[in-house]
């Protein structure tokens, strides 16, 4: 439609045929305007964290310009990274998150495959049920969980309170439903003929899952992995409620409970700790960003 013969194009003034590109130009200007606005808005906290983390305590408490550093220092970093405490939090968080991601993906990929492809009695209801559990706020589960822990202690003599590894069994209650839901949407978007072809080719259900579905749905799996990692890395309420000893804390809770002593806020170290804590998800995002976006949009249209 837009292609005219070269002669006509050359003869007509650009303003008559240029309305399309002029519209586009304005749209671009507006989108850049808002994108800049958003970027400033969302980058302000991390930048503030970065600035504060390289200040001395004296400079922070002296209410000078909060957006400028007069005497930059790495003391906060050195102090945190030489403290065993902080490294323990980091290790706990890392172990919990990695285990949770593995458990979540093992459960949700297989569950989603069954729910999306093996039509069995009640499979549709079950799929909806999976999503509904995700809608239950975690705070509602504290009391039932305390109760369950008490029963476990009574019957099996296993203490679940105040252990970092308890989080490995707690977090999947948050991650599995949502990841299963993402994966159901993703698997549902794979044409049915693909597994039928595999079935005729002689693949078992397990082989269809491992050799066809998982490779084809890899973007979705990566999206789900990132989600599971982010949720378990940033989870705050469960560890706050179920762990108390310093050596059992995970990073988000550890920073808050050990660096705030009474009403003394050690702002420099809090900011440093949070900034370092944000690094692993950031690195993962940077590597898997393209897949993550592809995964989210695919889930959006099919879910």
């Amino acid at each position, binding site marked *: 439609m837009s292609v005219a013969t070269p002669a006509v194009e050359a003869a007509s003034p650009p303003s008559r045929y240029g309305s399309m590109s002029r519209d586009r130009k304005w749209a671009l200007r507006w989108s850049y305007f808002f994108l800049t606005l958003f970027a400033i808005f969302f980058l302000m906290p991390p930048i503030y964290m970065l600035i504060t983390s390289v200040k001395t305590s004296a400079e922070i408490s002296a209410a000078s310009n909060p957006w400028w550093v007069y005497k930059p220092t790495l003391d906060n970093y050195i102090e945190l990274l030489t403290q065993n405490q902080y490294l323990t939090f980091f290790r706990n968080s890392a172990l919990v998150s990695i285990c949770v991601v593995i458990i979540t993906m093992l459960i949700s990929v297989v569950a989603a495959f069954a729910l999306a492809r093996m039509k069995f009695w009640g499979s549709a209801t079950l799929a909806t049920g999976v999503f509904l559990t995700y809608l239950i706020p975690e705070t509602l589960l504290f009391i039932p969980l305390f109760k369950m822990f008490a029963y476990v202690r009574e019957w099996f003599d296993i203490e679940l309170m105040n252990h970092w590894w308890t989080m490995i069994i707690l977090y999947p209650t948050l991650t599995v439903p949502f990841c299963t839901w993402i994966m159901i949407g993703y698997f549902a978007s794979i044409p049915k*003929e693909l597994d039928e072809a595999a079935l*005729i*080719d*002689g*693949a078992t259900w397990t082989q269809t899952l491992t050799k066809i579905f998982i490779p084809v749905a890899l973007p979705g799996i990566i999206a789900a992995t990132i989600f599971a990692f982010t949720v378990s890395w940033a989870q705050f309420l469960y560890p706050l409620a179920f762990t108390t000893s310093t050596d059992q804390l995970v990073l988000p809770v550890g920073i808050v409970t050990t660096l705030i002593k009474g009403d003394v806020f050690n702002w420099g170290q809090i900011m440093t700790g949070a900034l370092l804590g944000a690094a692993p998800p950031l690195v993962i995002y940077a590597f898997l960003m393209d897949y993550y976006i592809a995964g989210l949009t695919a889930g959006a249209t099919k879910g």
Partner: protein
Amino acid sequence: MAQVTLRKVVKRYDEVLAVRGIDLEIADKEFIVLVGPSGCGKSTTLRMIAGLEEISEGQIAIGGRVVNDVPPKDRDIAMVFQNYALYPHMNVYENMSFGLKLKGTAKSIIDTRVKQAAQILDITDLLERKPKQLSGGQRQRVAMGRAIVRDPKVFLFDEPLSNLDAKLRVQMRTEIKKVHQKVRTTTVYVTHDQVEAMTLADRVVVMSNGVIEQVGTPDELYHRPTTKFVAGFIGSPAMNFIPCKVERNGGALKVVLADNLAFDVPASRTGRYEGCVGKNAILLGLRPEHITETRQHMEVDQRPFDRTLDVTEPMGMETLVYFTIGATPICGRVAPNAGARDGQPMKLAADLANMHLIDDSTGKVI
């Protein structure tokens, strides 16, 4: 040896009866085409043979073995899907070898077979490519290659060409025919395109509404349809159905149409149509190609008549002419130089040697 036998096969989806009792004998090495309008149960029938749908009632046997409860992989069949269903993350070679690999076939044998199939289909240069780097026609070939490599007893095709453009479809049609001549595997092919059916099939199965209307060679279906449905379905443009009455004309018969038109029935057909005399709801079936311009030397059974044309459609090698008899719109095919003009009268000839009489109350051809 791979005959396929269907006995009283029924498929029920909850309330819907998709296939209602099909009996069919497919001989070894035969190319059978299932054809019919959308929703008539062709795919369902094919998928039951493949084992992708359970059989509600009846029996299906492949190579003499009843396969009702045999899973698809053990039926020794290969299927080509409408959307090709190539594994997107594997290259062409891996796509074609996947089935053999699962069976644990030796690498060297796989390699020979894949190369051989690639040669038959002329895709040797594409073996390293991923499906998304292929054109529609190439994907179609790979899908066929994947079927050939497994050397199955039966090939099943479900509308394999309907995603291709018209020109490529004709080309691939020839290709499929060539492949069948080379590998000689029993084939069941589903399409809703009657031209595809006629050109490919040894025998065509015309289905409608979950039942088989007629089974026969393309020639039989064209010249001797047994039902009004088949008569109207096979051939393009479709056969004209003209309400008529059969009357005696001395010792012979004549069909009387609207507008005071009457044609003498060929002497050879007198016996066959004797019973129709005076009956209501009789249709004269005449294909467009049997309504032509009058010529100098007419066949004995060509009957001339005059009509005013409504519309003409020049097609190049022929011209389609449209007119009415009574209220019935009729299509005829005349030579491009026969002088057919919109709105002008024309001398036409009906070839009654190719007439059919249909009892409209039963839908059967008499």
